[in-house]
């Protein structure tokens, strides 16, 4: 009954897709839209990365050399907004589009026109956001968290930023609805929930998080907008409001948001590690429950981002304990990944290398996260480079490395061509070394007392800042290798087999490489599903 869509799409192999620009602007095909999402994310990754290099260049030595403090604040704000909403989130939606229909045995996403709409909003949203840097008063410079009253001091960029965030939120919600409807209604017969690949599970839960919290963000920024233009005082003490209330609302969105950025990464790593260990994932069901528990806990820990605002003791204790609790399901996941490798038969192609680096470095980010949960210690760590090091460890060698692992894993499937493995390995080693040169010294800087979001610093912080800047430029330029590899694979090369990797399991590997335009025109047989579901 849930599969009427599948039969309606079952026509002959000619896909009748429009050609030229129409194929992309009118796109309703999940692969075309997925490709556009990934290309968009990559573009934003380089724009946001360019801003990061501007920040690191200014921080090369004390004194102001390149940018003035106002522009520096714009760069930090825009770097975060672009990387979060422009690079990582669209990359995950791109993966969802490409993989979920293939992995659950569906011909396409459930809502193809909504899919088109949710993608095509994004270029407009980011044109407005980036364009806001060129209006009188400069771009948003109050940090991506938009704390009032500071964010209300912005110039003409203010309504543009808010409008861009509204658009991004609408796009994310549409993408999330599409994912949920596809997973709930388009699974092939026999693809029961607890047979779904962990990537699908992680995205299902992520999609619910998105639907739960993006409206909260929309509400928060709308209140900022009315405070600025319509005389309301939600966040102004003089009118009976409270600036801290914004922080509570923002982080009620913001903490689930960081899991929105990392849960699909868990899903990808849970696909890649078994494939290159040639062994099913250890504790499949526990992995599902762990993702669900993390998602639940993400709703009750938000105030750990704001321990210094002056909360009641009971509140601080609650948020400390709840935050520490997250270490339990996260630990279970790390242990299960390790157990998956245990007594496996490991090989080290680029996807596996990136997944392994994820495993080690995300765990380091987890350790510093645990340290930050300890409230008294957080009074020292808060708003220092220690925090910057922490969240970059979970987001760069965490989310971004998982994206790399996913790209290298599925690239042969997507393009039908094997890519240059040697070059991929080189890209891995350069990334893995430079990312540590870039972010590890920031732990030292933070502990030694360097606040975050400053364009200039006291001279004793110079040495480690120089190291960090060297790492930043090394890491940034290494990423060009990835673009070259993807470009080469898209243009041609050795033909990839349907099962491009010996240990790969899952329905997408039962389709030829590249897969047909409408992935599963007839649902896969139960035997194929059983073979694919050996997780």
């Amino acid at each position, binding site marked *: 009954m849930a599969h009427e869509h599948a039969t309606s799409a079952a026509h002959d192999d000619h896909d009748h897709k429009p050609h030229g620009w129409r194929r992309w602007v009118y796109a309703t095909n999940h692969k075309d839209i997925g490709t556009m999402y990934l290309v968009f994310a990559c573009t934003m990754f380089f724009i946001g990365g360019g801003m990061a290099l501007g920040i690191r260049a200014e921080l090369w030595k*004390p*004194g*102001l050399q390149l940018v003035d*403090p106002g522009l520096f*604040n714009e760069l930090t704000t825009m770097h975060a907004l672009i990387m979060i909403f422009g690079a990582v989130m669209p990359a995950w939606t791109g993966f969802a589009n490409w993989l979920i229909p293939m992995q659950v045995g569906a011909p396409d996403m459930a809502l193809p026109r909504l899919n088109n709409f949710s993608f095509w909003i994004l270029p407009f949203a980011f044109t407005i956001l980036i364009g806001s840097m060129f209006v009188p008063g400069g771009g948003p*410079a*109050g*940090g991506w968290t938009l704390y009032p*009253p*500071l964010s209300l*001091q912005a110039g003409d960029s203010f309504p543009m930023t808010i409008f861009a965030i509204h658009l991004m939120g609408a796009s994310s919600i549409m993408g999330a609805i599409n994912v949920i409807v596809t997973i709930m209604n388009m699974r092939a017969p026999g693809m029961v929930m607890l047979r779904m690949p962990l990537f699908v599970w992680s995205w299902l839960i992520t999609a619910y998080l998105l639907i739960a919290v993006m409206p909260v963000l929309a509400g928060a920024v709308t209140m900022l907008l009315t405070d600025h233009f319509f005389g309301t005082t939600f966040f102004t*003490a003089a009118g009976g409001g409270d*600036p*801290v209330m914004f922080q509570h609302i923002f982080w009620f969105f913001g903490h689930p948001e960081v899991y929105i950025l990392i849960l699909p990464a868990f899903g990808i790593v849970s696909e890649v590690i078994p494939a290159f*260990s*040639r*062994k099913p*994932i250890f*504790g*499949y069901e526990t992995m599902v429950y762990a993702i669900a528990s993390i998602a639940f806990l993400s709703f009750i820990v938000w105030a750990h981002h704001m321990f*210094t*605002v*002056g909360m009641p*003791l009971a509140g*601080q*204790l609650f948020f400390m304990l709840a935050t*520490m609790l997250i*270490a339990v399901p996260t*630990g279970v996941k790390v*242990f299960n990944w*390790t157990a998956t*490798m*245990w*007594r*496996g*038969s*490991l*090989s080290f192609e680029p996807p596996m290398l990136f997944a392994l680096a994820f*495993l*080690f470095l995300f*765990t380091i980010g987890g350790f510093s996260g*645990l340290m930050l949960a*300890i409230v*008294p210690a957080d*009074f*020292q760590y*808060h708003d220092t480079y220690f925090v910057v090091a922490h969240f970059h460890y979970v987001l760069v060698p965490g989310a971004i490395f998982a994206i790399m692992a996913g790209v290298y894993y599925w690239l042969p499937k997507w393009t039908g061509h094997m890519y240059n493995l040697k070059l991929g390995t080189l890209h891995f080693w350069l990334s893995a070394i430079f990312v540590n040169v870039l972010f590890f010294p920031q732990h030292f800087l933070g*502990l*030694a*007392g360097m*606040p975050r*979001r*400053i*364009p*200039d610093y*006291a*001279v*004793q*912080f110079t040495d*480690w800042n120089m190291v960090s800047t060297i790492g930043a430029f090394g890491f940034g330029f290494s990423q060009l290798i990835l673009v070259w590899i993807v470009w080469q694979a898209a243009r041609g090369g050795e033909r990839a087999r349907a099962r491009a990797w010996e240990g790969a399991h899952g329905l997408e590997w039962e389709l030829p490489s590249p897969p047909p335009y409408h992935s599963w025109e007839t649902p896969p047989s139960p035997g194929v599903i059983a073979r694919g579901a050996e997780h």
Partner: protein
Amino acid sequence: MIRKTMTSLAALAVAVLAPAAVAQATGAAQTSGWGLLNMTEGVTEISRRIYDLHMLIFWVCVVIGIVVFGAMFWSIVKFRKSTGSVPDTKMVHNTKVEIIWTFVPVVILVAMAVPAANTLIEIEDTRDTGLTIKVTGFQWGWQYEYLDSGVRFFSRLDRDSDAARRLESGVDVTKIPHYLLNVDNPVVVPAGVKVRLLVTASDVIHAWWVPAFGMKKDAIPGFINEMWFEVDPDKTGIYRGQCAELCGRDHAFMPIVADVRSKADFDAWLKAKAAEQKPAEQAPPEAPAETPPAEQPSAEPTAADPAAEAPVLSARS
């Protein structure tokens, strides 16, 4: 090839960490920035307890890391396809092991939460304070008001740093003493007294932070936050910090300098300061706190100078 690379990585790690360990062990004088690797113990009972908590959880993480990373490395080295390892595809589930690695972390977390909660309860105990100073953050500086004696003054970035920090100022900032960490009028506080700060702001959110005192508190316009510190009686000297909450373009340029004096010296200073500010009371009404005067009269150049000369943590006789 990978094994070779891993060996060289390990060598690199040792090369990076060994000097760090030496600096830790010897408590090397921080003449260069390379030795600045860890939190300072600070000069208050609370800051030392925070430091101990920080080190406790750090070592807990190190031990867990050794176990977990050890298992990962062992898998990577031992179970390689290239050395003929055969996968054990039946190893997909083990309830006993999974229960163990769920509950062992819970126990560790509880063990860490107890001392953390105890310290937190002590930090939040703002009773029995001996002196109250109201601290108001503004864009971009601080105002201090000694509520019991009516002494009040502004504290801003010192002129040398302020001139040097301009874009293309042409000044070698490494020659400026305490570049960006020096002010015209430091806040003077007594050692051995529980000092309560009432922290607020007049425009946007700021945060008052002196790392050596172990505490940081947001300064929020329209609200008053409380924090306190009690510097050890023998730890008089100059302590420096910065605004810790992004507050606009000059966020990096509103340092905090605390001049900790003995109780007697402090009382003398406060008395002199109060007498000095008395005539000002009869003068035309002062500018309100929200709008600091554009040109802060350098009330006592002599007080600012020793701060500029004094090395960090110098003892004051």
